């Protein structure tokens, strides 16, 4: 098995949000600032790794008709671990992410990876898959949040960029999230079409 490939497919080729189109809600809702985005990425990656390891470990004992409830219970347990840890050690982050921490449970990326990958592969491969997918998800969130934080609050990593300039508040509200993702997806389609045309002419 090509472990390197398992890791990198989550970052580019099978990127969860931009290519597969899953896990949209947290991507859009949490990307209002870079620090929120990175914390959300870390939390989701942790849950992803934990659930992938456990699901992969029990993949031969679980009867296939009750596997979904079992997977969801496993995921929910890891989400509770994240919730309590953040509440205890990073209360500010816990408050900023709010309802989206319990909602990691219903993030389609995690159940999707458990069902599609971890239930069929051994533990090391599942860990790498989770790491890659988690990294891809975190990168997506970071890209979106950099754009939205610069335009929407005139800041980057919490530091003011141009003093005295009024930011476009719209960008950190819900419409800004939709516009940014729509335009990014458009840009990705343009790049894909260009490379396809370039390959054809070669």
């Amino acid at each position: 098995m090509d472990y390197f490939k398992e890791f990198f497919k989550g970052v580019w080729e099978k990127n969860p949000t931009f290519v597969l189109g899953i896990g949209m809600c947290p991507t859009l809702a949490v990307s209002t600032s870079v620090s929120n985005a990175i914390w959300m990425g870390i939390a989701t990656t942790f849950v992803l790794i934990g659930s992938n390891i456990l699901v992969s470990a029990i993949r031969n004992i679980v009867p296939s008709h009750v596997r979904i409830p079992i997977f969801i219970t496993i995921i929910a347990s890891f989400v509770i671990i994240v919730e309590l840890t953040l509440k205890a050690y990073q209360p500010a982050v816990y408050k900023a992410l709010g309802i989206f921490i319990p909602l990691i449970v219903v993030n389609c990326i995690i159940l999707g990876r458990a069902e599609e990958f971890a239930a069929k592969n051994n533990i090391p491969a599942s860990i790498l898959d989770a790491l890659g997918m988690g990294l891809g998800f975190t990168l997506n969130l970071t890209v979106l949040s950099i754009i939205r934080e610069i335009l929407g609050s005139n800041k980057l990593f919490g530091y003011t960029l141009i003093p005295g300039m009024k930011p476009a508040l719209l960008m950190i509200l819900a419409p800004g999230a939709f516009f940014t993702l729509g335009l990014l997806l458009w840009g990705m389609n343009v790049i894909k079409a260009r490379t396809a045309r370039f390959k054809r002419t070669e």
Partner: protein
Amino acid sequence: MEIKILFTILISTIFINNYVLSRILGLCPYLGVSKKLDSAIGMGLAVIFVMTIASFFTFIIYKFVLIPFHIEYLRTIAFIIVIASLVQLVEMVIEKISPALYQALGIFLPLITTNCAVLGVAVLNIDSGFITQEFGLLNSVVQGFGAGVGFTLALLLMAGIRERLEIAMIPENLKGLPITFITAGLMAMAFLGFSGMKIF
């Protein structure tokens, strides 16, 4: 007095804090099922139904099971299991009682378990402090119903627009998801207008 509060909750969940366009919850079904108006209606009705009863049951479980045993931290796991089994139960009951309704809603019901708006409304019912109020249960059921109606409203509007977009002239690369997101952004901007609204 109580009617006034209920009305405020209803209007604010439908328009001001619309679950899709303002809180950004439940995007997967919103994008997935909004291609045709017929299926959007089915999905919307199923979501209203499940959200209302899910608010009822999660509130009861939180108040009479989790709080007395001091296990509030198990909220997430309890709610997701309640919602998943509830959806299963509703599916079986509808199949027995009304095959016609089952035909209309059937395929959408399993999808609702992973709709984050349903878990979202259950968690928000607890977070908005209804638990200590006198009519908390009624409030949270109304909030669940309103959230479902708001979701359906956004979904139907989007489905109507997307049916038109099918025949519109759009640049090749903008077709599909990108134009849908930009449309959703414009709709969210329109819904922002409600945020200045004062009730009473």
